[in-house]
């Protein structure tokens, strides 16, 4: 059996003195997609931040391609192949679309043109500044910027948050294309439960910093089961 792409063992992490994640175990194989759902404030975003090195790992270990990430700086994790699309998008407001992408480019399979093929809206707005884009375009730019870093694993933190339904639909199609066509492992944190369950075969439910369910997404499509773990059906 091949080594997992990402492996978290007994991970406890947080910010400063505060512990947000407790005793977490998670394994992700190459090309595997997993959705993470749960109520607000249960540690979903903190989990991605911990993998990325933005939160303090207090206990346990994180391995990526069998390499221990404990003492690896955030920028090196990205260069190792972990891409991160943050919840707040955080595009650089005074850089143009092209420049936002250029500053993130790493050598690898993803070319700028390939990214623009995936996001034709961005191609047409190459010379527009980040702060001139709509929320949906900023989200696309955030994904595009992560892709040109040539990740093997893409961490996506609530990409549909705050977007109009029509944009969410468009974005959903793109994320699905990433799953189907590019053999990318994706860890998707998502509030839209129906989309999250449809997106990945495996879903993780988090509650109070712990994983309370890690298994088949289909089982959660039953409303009662979902209620049991999440409490709220979106």
């Amino acid at each position: 059996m091949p080594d997992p792409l990402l492996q978290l063992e007994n991970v406890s992490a947080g910010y400063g003195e505060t512990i947000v994640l407790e005793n977490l175990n998670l394994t992700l194989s190459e090309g595997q997609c997993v959705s993470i759902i749960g109520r607000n404030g249960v540690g979903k975003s903190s989990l991605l931040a911990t993998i990325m090195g933005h939160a303090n790992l207090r206990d346990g270990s994180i391995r990526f391609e069998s390499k221990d990430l404990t003492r690896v700086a955030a920028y090196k994790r990205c260069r190792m192949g972990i891409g991160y699309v943050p919840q707040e998008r955080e595009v650089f407001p005074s850089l143009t679309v092209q420049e936002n992408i250029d500053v993130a480019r790493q050598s690898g399979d993803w070319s700028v043109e390939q990214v623009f093929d995936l996001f034709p809206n961005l191609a047409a707005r190459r010379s527009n500044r980040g702060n001139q884009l709509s929320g949906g375009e900023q989200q696309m730019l955030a994904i595009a910027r992560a892709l040109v870093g040539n990740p093997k694993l893409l961490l996506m933190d609530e990409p549909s948050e705050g977007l109009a339904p029509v944009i969410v639909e468009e974005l959903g199609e793109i994320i699905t294309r990433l799953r189907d066509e590019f053999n990318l492992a994706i860890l998707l944190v998502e509030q839209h439960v129906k989309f999250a369950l449809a997106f990945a075969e495996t879903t993780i439910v988090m509650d109070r910093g712990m994983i309370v369910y890690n298994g088949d997404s289909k089982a959660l499509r039953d409303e009662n089961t979902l209620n049991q773990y999440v409490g709220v059906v979106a």
Partner: protein
Amino acid sequence: MTTKVYDAENPVVFLRDRTRWHWAEALPWIVAVAIFFLQPITLNLGVQILITIIFALSLDLILGYGGVVTLGHAAYFGAGAYVTGMLSAHLGWNEPISGLLAGATVAGAFGFATGWILLRYHGLALLMLTLALGIMMAELANVTEVWTGGFDGLSGIVIDPIFGIFENDLWRRNYYWYSLIATFFVFLACRRIVNSAFGRSLVGIRENTERMRAIGSPVHLRLVTIYTISAFMAGIAGALFAQVNAYVTLDVLSFARSGTILIVLVLGGTGRLYGAFVGALVYILVEDELAKEYPAYWELGLGFVLVLTALFFRQGLLGALESFVRFCKRLKA
């Protein structure tokens, strides 16, 4: 509004397009050359302005692009000035261009060594550390009197004619050109840097450091790199200062000099390069005029100008001009 669409796949083409020279960029250089022939201001004052421009450009690289706020940039200006001065006064190294490069190189190396440590900090801690660096350098220069002349200043600097021909004459005719050419090369280097992918990544660091780390950018290394280049350029300004005046005092390392250059840059507008030109020109001319008209109160008048700028032109004078041009264009449209 029309959106410009770029066909080129290669980002180099995109960057080249955005670095194309605009005709308006020739203006400061035409004015600088015209000043030599028309001399509306003395060339001595012109040389001071040019040195201040180089120093302000060096600060703009780290402050305007890298977002590093410092109160100790005079440390590198002073390092360049003292090294060039001491090479001449103690070792007889009087050749101007190599002396200037030697001063700048030592300042750059000093910038690298200090930047490696300083840039691990940010915010108030960085501000205090840079302030402390400037004070420590001034004190170091004070106690190493044998080399620096201490409180009395470093005298005995004799600079050979440039290329063995052009002397540092009383009217600064030759040194005006020398300083202008140095300014032009420093500006070219700055322009090249800020328009490169590296320069764009500095803007990214200024706007969101954590995000730059998350997209794989070695933030500390990049900041140290630009800090070193900035210190090298500040060293050029300091070395020029020493060569022009043939005298260096502790003032080159003072907090006042670090503060003044910060004011000059903020006055002109940070993150624009040309803000350094506007700030230096306005600051020195206003300072000169006020000092002539009101010898006892000129600093009060200068303070008033700065307060007005801070209140009404927060993007600096150049930023205000840009806003005005945009406003006119909107009216026209």
